[in-house]
């Protein structure tokens, strides 16, 4: 339990909680980016540098941009960026669910007897990782490529405007 860890935890949870409460959509998105950065920091702290960089690239770099595009694409006026405050009833249920889930997981965590942790982090070089990916997990990697392609195409199809005659029909 280190200080660094605590700082990171505060950043992660704090920005996430703030995002949960802010009414402004842009603010929420930006706060979440902060949270993702915190997670990246956590990876660094844990010794998984490659994953940390991947997290920064994918989440902080790419995903946040996409989210911002989506926000901008789906807004008609500035006023609309202020989304409605959550309905009380749903919010209460959400909190109950959240607390219950974290409570259960926490209970499970405390109830479990853990082996003592190894002292040093496992050695993972980028080279080793690359060999691992192209060796044992080559098939998964390929599949992932296919999945990403399919997702790309799917996204294009979904987001593309419907053709005129189909609109008439609907």
């Amino acid at each position, binding site marked *: 339990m280190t200080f660094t*860890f605590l700082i990171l935890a505060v950043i992660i949870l704090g920005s996430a909680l703030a995002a949960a409460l802010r009414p402004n959509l842009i603010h929420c998105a930006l706060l979440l980016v902060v949270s993702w950065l915190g997670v990246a920091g*956590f*990876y660094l702290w844990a010794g998984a540098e490659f994953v940390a960089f991947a997290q920064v690239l994918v*989440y902080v770099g790419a995903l946040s941009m996409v989210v911002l595009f989506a926000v901008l694409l789906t807004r008609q006026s500035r006023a609309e960026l202020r989304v409605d405050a959550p309905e009380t009833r749903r919010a209460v249920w959400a909190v109950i669910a959240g*607390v219950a889930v*974290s409570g259960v997981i926490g209970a499970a965590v405390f109830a479990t007897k853990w082996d003592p942790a190894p002292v040093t982090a496992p050695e993972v070089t980028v080279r080793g*990782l690359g060999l691992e990916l192209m060796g044992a997990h080559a098939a998964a990697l390929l599949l992932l490529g296919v999945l990403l392609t399919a997702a790309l195409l799917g996204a294009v199809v979904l987001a593309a405007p419907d053709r005129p005659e189909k609109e008439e029909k609907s």
Partner: protein
Amino acid sequence: MSPLQGCLLLSAALFSVGLVIALARSNAILVLLGIELMLNAANLNFIAFWRFHSGAAPATGVIFVLFAIAVAAAEAAVGLALVIALYRHQKNLRLQEATRLRG
């Protein structure tokens, strides 16, 4: 409290925050982001176990997380496309109004 437990608790808390966001907010984009948070919490767990738990193969946790990030990226892309389609359809992003799947 061992570092592993701390990490797991952090992950649980992050997951719950994500869940609360997904459950409480009505904007579809925010719901999607809440889900991304929950995914992050899961990844966090992987790294925690990789780092603080013995018996695993050297690179398994890392590779798992890498794949999960890739899948999450794909998921996010599709999800956001869905959001845009939804917006085009009902001219807003209020998820509670998207109830056309009702049985």
